[in-house]
């Protein structure tokens, strides 16, 4: 799908971004570890590591990644996410933002603004 979309963008995979919410964020997280293509960035909302994998695959360089998590998320709490993704959060390209009044959803204007700003920031130089 990334290849297909990048063909519409002069084969520039760096102009393709991945994003995901909850279960979709885990697939995005996993994909950003195994993809050969250099994508523009990844955005994970309410991210976690699913119990179906023991560990994420090793990768030297990850795409620029924004992780947004709600402090009021009671489906996957921020503490659980911190434990699940402790090593991941320490990677240099990964930026984590916790939003105080956000639950397990995207009905939060601040989260949506940060989401948009991240994409604008990453596309400003391209």
């Amino acid at each position, binding site marked *: *799908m*990334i290849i297909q*979309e*990048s063909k*519409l*963008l002069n084969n520039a995979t760096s*102009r*393709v*971004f*991945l*994003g*995901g*919410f*909850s*279960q*979709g*964020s*885990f*697939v*995005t997280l*996993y*994909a950003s570890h*195994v*993809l050969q293509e250099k994508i*523009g960035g990844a955005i994970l909302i*309410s991210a976690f590591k*699913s*119990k*179906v*994998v023991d560990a994420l695959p090793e990768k030297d360089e990850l795409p620029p990644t924004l992780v947004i998590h709600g402090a009021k998320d009671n489906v996957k709490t921020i503490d659980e996410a911190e434990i699940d993704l402790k090593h991941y959060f320490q990677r240099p390209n990964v930026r984590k933002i916790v939003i105080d009044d956000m639950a397990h959803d*995207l*009905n939060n*204007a601040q989260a*949506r*603004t940060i*989401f*948009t700003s991240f*994409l*604008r920031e990453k*596309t400003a130089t*391209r």
Partner: protein
Amino acid sequence: MVIQNFSYFISKGKSLFCQKKLEIQSQFLRIDKVSVYFFRQNKTSKKKFSYQMNSVSSGSCQQQTLNIQITEKGITLLPLNKPHKYCLIFLHGFAMPVSKFLNVFLSPEMLSLLSDFKICIPQAPKRAHGPQGKSVKRFYSWYDPDDRSTVNYIQKIAYFL
């Protein structure tokens, strides 16, 4: 109660949003900025809906025209009559229909992205959820969260992306 940004959706033909509910709400709320979205249905078939959307924001008088394609495989939002420069592929969460994200990406905070972004929101297949897939309930899901053997499936999706 004051709402700073209020999104108002009008759909001609197939109703995308509950227009009457919004009208009732707006009578009781003070709204500082109203965004009005006019939908015009272009093509109707059993499998594909395509809409043009004109958004008019009373605060900034911005106008934007989008193409919204809704199929059983997902939703695609893209600028109309203008090539997109970037693409965002967004994967939804467990048991969520993609339509839930239409509101999100058409919200005032994110609408500006659609000036140069194509946004693809694929719909996960419906799959039985529970031990060994015996559950009678089927949900939209990228993988079975209770089945460790499903990891192969996640790899397939990751490579599909």
